[in-house]
């Protein structure tokens, strides 16, 4: 209530001291709302109604003692209510003319008593209690109400602070406060709604206003005016009385008003407000339309300022009778502001809110259908007023043309513009009449509504990227381009082609021009031209589009406008120039995902692939064939852009584009090869392409073009090889076609980092094959690679280090790396952050560490600590790679045990990584643990950190790689204390037995070793036996035969074929792998020994 009263209600500004609420419909509705609230309050909220106000509300009332009934002590003219507050004061007290009210219940009763005067009473009450909330709840609450978003927490705090002992009271207060706040919000939203409903004047509003003023003329002494009359009795269908050619200026009617105290006023009512004219007495006068006064918001305001008598009397008018016309609402907008200025303590939030309110007001008239149709009026009017002379006018429509994109609207504008000229040069009557037709508001409605709404939504979309529209900032190109677009719209084929050529003369790579074309609606016209039959227009349009589509925003707009549909359609055209241009444009537009998807959805990929069909490698081409080649080149360019989407790669493949690309790959021209190889290398991320590239024999051409003079082409070729050489066969082919030497020579182009990255990548992947490494070494690749370990961007380093890791698989190369100073450089890279790089570096360091001398250097540089610390890296890849690298380090370090122990917390870190969810990490950590556990002391520490249960827990895995290393780790960890028994207790033995069924030989070996170690514990032997290490499905059991039968068996050597069929460990004893043989035999022996001991024991007892 506080906010709405202070801000939304309209106070007369004239009076000092107590303000008066103006007689406006807004105030009336506000009052009615409040009245309704007060009336229902005591019935709806009985508890809150009893709350005694902080200060009484007091005002001079027109009620007298006789109006009061029971429940009141009436003595003379004074009235007191029976109900009293805690201090004995009556809740209602009347000592004429003033009344004091202390609670809502009394207020409700009072209002009921006032009956038909209740509005006036409430009005008086509010006028004399400018801050009712302060009175009711006290200043602290009132200030809260002023704040937006006050919540109950704050309220309860205040309540408690104020009177802690009266908890109930404050609770009521809070509720009362919330009720008031609700009312406030309600009132405000209502006001807002009303304000927004009508901001502009319209004929209906004007008519209402005149009707109202006429009523003021009727009454005798209190009449405000003598007479009000229209100059014309004829009313047009749109409600205006002004002649049509004046309607374009927004004028609606002319009035002759005779005030009581001054001379007769000749008033023009226009959509923008009312003003005095030159004295139009009757219809059809040709002069006097010019305004002689300033513009007033409405008639009442005008009269207020012109006639003091009117101003005085209008406020005296009986409130109940006062049904001010809706037009007056217009002034509310301003009065809100006026009131704001009088309120110094307003917060930012409120200001903001106010802004929103206004914004809302500005928007709504566009949407409200009824008022809408007069919009054009004002616009024409503004046009005329702002720039009456022809030249300046050009700017005005352009200002709006940015908003109104549709060509139709544009034409209307142009028409209107010329109309305005006609208006200012004295034109003949027929001209005027025809102009009126164009401007006929009813006719303009549909187009206007349509264009307005569409442009609005469009603007919303593009708002973020739009620069502020200000005419002064726009460069001259903007206006020139705008003119050209106008000719494009209205020109025939010849004019269109000329205009398109003129547009091409602009620097279309410059953003100003690109955006200008879009902003003046040129993009739409250009796209529309693509759907015509005129080849030359289409060519011209595409020539422009292919250039401006270098701009990101233009690309998006083209896609938004559905331009790709037309462009893709042109790909089917018989005209080769057109096809090439369309493809080139697509190449530019399809730089973002949505565009690429759209191209695919319109079937563009298929069409583009079709463009690739040509004969690229003939020596003497006819002119036609040359054009075909050009078309294919543009098609390849477009496919290159499109191929960045995975689905498009698939679509190209399905459209059988790969063989065509392979064919074009034989072209001798770089400008053809670049997009083709570009597409291929982009697509080579898909395995299907890698296979196809290899099968179609493209590796040969790719290798050939590695020796091209063009850096870009070389880069794409190297990049394609990089991706394809994941495949063994491809690596062989690269070698076969002598691709390794050019790759190495590319390493010298250290200036071009992209090329270097691609070349080193290709070398890395090729060096996965050992034969290739040997070949590469012939060209001294290793020295160069080590040289590239410094001052290179990470994408190069990743590949170089990757390659070093592969090279270091050959012992001789390890020494070379050391001699070139590579070890130190590699160790330095261990401190980096790039995960891909760290994976490769650790791998390379690990590979180098297999050489004792290298290891010495690594140890000296504290490399092991660095590698170890990478176990903390969040990336699982880095973790596992580091753990793998640790294995050779530990194996080859001079005093490995001591070294490991010196790393504080290192062992704990390792053990904790056994909780990882990544199998590769687990496998690598198990491998590292196997190495660490070779040192007894370290094994003791590992055991202390709980390595046994963690390892045992992992034994359930089915991952053979993990199984192998896990079993190895277990076998090594058995060497300490009671670990064997612990593994058994943790259930590891049973799981390990299952590993014997694995198909992987290395798993068998490590498992046999582990079982052998575990079998040294009798209990484990029993478990193994129970799980069938030595027992087949039929129950054939060698190791634990019943004594009776056993003697029979022991006389023969174990039947090997039978055992091989059904007894895993026995079978492994027959393995060719000596380790496996030995471990299996050892295990069986342990089980047998136990059985023997068992038998012996039985015999003795």
């Amino acid at each position: 209530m506080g906010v709405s009263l202070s801000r939304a209600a309209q106070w007369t500004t004239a009076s000092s001291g107590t303000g008066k609420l103006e007689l406006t419909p807004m105030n009336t509705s506000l009052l009615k709302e409040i009245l309704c609230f007060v009336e229902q309050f005591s019935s709806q909220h009985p508890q809150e109604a009893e709350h005694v106000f902080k200060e009484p509300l007091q005002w001079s009332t027109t009620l007298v003692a006789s109006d009061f009934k029971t429940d009141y002590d009436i003595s003379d003219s004074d009235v007191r209510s029976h109900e009293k507050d805690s201090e004995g004061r009556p809740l209602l007290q009347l000592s004429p003319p003033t009344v004091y009210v202390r609670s809502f219940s009394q207020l409700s009763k009072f209002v009921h008593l006032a009956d038909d005067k209740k509005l006036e009473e409430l009005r008086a009450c509010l006028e004399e209690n400018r801050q009712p909330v302060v009175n009711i709840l006290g200043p602290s609450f009132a200030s809260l109400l002023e704040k937006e978003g006050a919540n109950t927490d704050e309220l309860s705090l205040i309540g408690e602070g104020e009177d802690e002992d009266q908890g109930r009271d404050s609770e009521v207060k809070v509720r009362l406060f919330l009720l008031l706040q609700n009312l406030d919000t309600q009132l405000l939203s209502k006001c807002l709604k009303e304000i927004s409903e009508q901001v502009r004047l319209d004929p209906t509003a004007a008519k209402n206003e005149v009707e109202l003023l006429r009523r003021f003329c009727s009454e005798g002494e209190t009449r405000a005016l003598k007479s009000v009359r229209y100059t014309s009795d004829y009313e047009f269908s749109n409600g205006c009385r002004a002649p049509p050619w004046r309607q374009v200026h927004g004028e609606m009617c002319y009035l002759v008003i005779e005030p009581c105290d001054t001379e007769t006023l000749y008033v023009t009512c226009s959509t923008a407000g009312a003003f005095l004219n030159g004295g139009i007495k009757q219809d059809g006068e040709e002069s006097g339309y010019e305004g002689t006064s300033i513009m007033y918001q409405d008639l009442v305001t005008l009269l207020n300022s012109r006639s003091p008598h009117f101003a005085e009397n209008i406020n005296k008018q009986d409130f109940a009778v006062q049904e001010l016309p809706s037009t007056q609402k217009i002034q509310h907008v301003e009065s809100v502001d006026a009131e704001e200025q009088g309120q110094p303590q307003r917060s930012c939030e409120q200001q903001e809110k106010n802004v929103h309110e206004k914004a809302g007001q500005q928007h709504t008239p566009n949407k409200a259908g009824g008022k809408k149709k007069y919009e054009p009026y004002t616009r024409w009017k503004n046009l005329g007023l702002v720039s009456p002379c022809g030249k300046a006018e050009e700017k005005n429509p352009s200002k709006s043309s940015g908003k109104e994109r549709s060509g139709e609207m544009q034409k209307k504008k142009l028409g209107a513009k010329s109309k305005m000229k006609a208006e200012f040069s004295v034109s003949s009557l027929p001209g005027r009449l025809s102009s009126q037709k164009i401007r006929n508001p009813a006719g303009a409605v549909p187009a206007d509504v349509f264009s307005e709404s569409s442009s609005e939504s469009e603007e919303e979309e593009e708002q973020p990227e739009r620069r502020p529209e200000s005419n002064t900032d726009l460069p001259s190109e903007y206006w020139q381009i705008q003119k050209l677009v106008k000719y494009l719209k209205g020109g025939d084929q010849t004019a269109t082609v000329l205009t398109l050529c003129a547009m091409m003369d602009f620097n279309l790579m410059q953003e100003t021009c690109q955006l200008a074309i879009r902003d003046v609606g040129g993009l739409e016209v250009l796209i529309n031209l693509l759907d015509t039959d005129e080849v030359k227009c289409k060519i011209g349009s595409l020539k422009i589009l292919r250039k401006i589509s270098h701009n990101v925003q233009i690309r998006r707009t083209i896609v938004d406008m559905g331009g790709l549909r037309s462009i893709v359609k042109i790909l089917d055209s018989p005209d080769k120039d057109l096809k090439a241009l369309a493809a080139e444009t697509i190449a530019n537009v399809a730089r973002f995902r949505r565009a690429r998807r759209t191209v695919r959805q319109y079937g563009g990929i298929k069409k583009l692939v079709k463009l690739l069909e040509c004969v690229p490698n003939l020596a003497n081409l006819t002119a036609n064939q040359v054009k075909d080649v050009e078309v294919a080149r543009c098609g390849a360019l477009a496919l290159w852009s499109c191929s960045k989407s995975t689905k498009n790669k698939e679509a190209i493949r399905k459209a059988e584009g790969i063989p065509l690309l392979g064919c074009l790959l034989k072209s001798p021209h770089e400008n053809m090869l670049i997009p083709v190889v570009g597409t291929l290398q982009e697509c080579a991320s898909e395995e299907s392409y890698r296979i196809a590239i290899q099968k179609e024999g493209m590796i040969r051409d790719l290798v050939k073009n590695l020796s091209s003079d063009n850096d870009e082409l070389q880069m794409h070729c190297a990049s394609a090889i990089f991706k394809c050489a994941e495949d063994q066969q491809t690596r062989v082919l690269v070698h076969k076609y002598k691709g390794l030497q050019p790759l190495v020579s590319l390493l010298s182009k250290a200036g071009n980092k992209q090329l270097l990255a691609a070349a080193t990548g290709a070398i890395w992947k090729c060096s996965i094959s050992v034969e290739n490494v040997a070949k590469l070494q012939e060209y001294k690749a290793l020295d160069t690679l080590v040289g590239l370990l410094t001052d290179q961007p990470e994408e190069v380093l990743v590949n170089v280090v990757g390659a070093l890791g592969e090279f270091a698989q050959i012992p001789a190369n390890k020494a070379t790396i050391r001699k070139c100073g590579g070890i130190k450089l590699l160790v330095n890279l261990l401190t980096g952050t790039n995960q891909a790089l760290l994976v490769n570096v650790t791998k390379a360091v690990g590979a180098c560490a297999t050489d004792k001398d290298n290891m010495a250097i690594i140890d000296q540089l504290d490399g092991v600590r660095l590698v170890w610390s990478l176990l903390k890296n969040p990336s699982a890849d880095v973790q596992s790679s580091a753990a793998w690298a640790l294995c050779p380090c530990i194996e080859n370090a001079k005093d490995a045990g001591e070294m490991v122990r010196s790393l504080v917390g290192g062992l704990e870190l390792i053990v904790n990584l056994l909780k990882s969810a990544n199998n590769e990490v687990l496998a690598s950590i198990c491998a590292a643990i196997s190495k660490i556990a070779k040192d007894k002391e370290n094994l003791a520490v590992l055991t202390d950190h709980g390595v046994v249960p963690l390892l045992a827990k992992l034994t359930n895995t089915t991952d053979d790689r993990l199984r192998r290393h896990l079993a190895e780790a277990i076998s090594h960890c058995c060497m300490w204390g009671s670990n064997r028994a612990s593994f058994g207790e943790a259930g590891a033995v049973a799981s390990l037995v299952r590993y014997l069924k694995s198909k992987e030989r290395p798993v068998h070996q490590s498992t046999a070793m582990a079982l052998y170690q575990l079998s040294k514990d009798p209990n484990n032997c029993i478990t193994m036996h129970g799980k069938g290490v030595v027992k087949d499905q039929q129950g054939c059991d060698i190791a634990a035969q019943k004594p009776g039968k056993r003697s029979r068996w022991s006389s023969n050597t174990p039947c090997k074929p039978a055992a091989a069929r059904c007894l895993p460990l026995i079978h492994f004893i027959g393995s060719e792998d000596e380790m496996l043989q030995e471990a299996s035999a050892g295990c069986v022996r342990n089980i047998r020994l136990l059985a023997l001991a068992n038998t012996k024991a039985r015999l003795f007892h």
Partner: protein
Amino acid sequence: MSEMTALSRKLIQTQADTISKQVEHFSKTEVKCLIRHYNQLLGQPAVPGRAVNGLDRGKFRSILHNIFRMTDDMIMDGVFKTFDKDNDGYVSMKEWIQGLSVFLRGTLDEKIKYCFHVYDFNGDNYISREEMFRMLKNSLITKPTEEDPDEGIKDLVEITLKMMDHDHDGRLSFADFEKAVREENLLLEAFGNCLPDATSVETFEQDVLQEQLEQ
């Protein structure tokens, strides 16, 4: 009749011999076909000994319109003027075939020359502002309400001059025109359609081919 045919055949043979020496892009057989075609267009058999002036302006224009789908009267006049080299008001057989050689198979150079001639109405070797204005007069849709309906056209002419008038003398010389067209081929028919489009060329050539087959 057969005597006549033999005679005319002989005549055509001689004509073809002469003309094919003076015309590029057409083989002798093709020239023969064109001669036949020309005679058909002329509408009366070539009577030996009687002088035939050739295609007059009206006939020529209707041919341009029907076969090559040209519409602009002014441009067609220009085309006629360009075909009619001796300026006698008739397009003779030789002129027709020479014209067609550019029309159908002309190189860019030939076409530039040809178009420039078409657009240069008064034959002063310049395309003046006025000539441009005349040619472009109907190229913009002007609203009846426009104060100066020619304003757009005038502006378009200025834009064109700015674009093509390299020596800034306010008119287009052949050098200006040639340079502009070489930079941007679309400007070849800058002031109106004066060359047949690809489809009509194809159709016409097909007719010629068919006649060859008939022979």
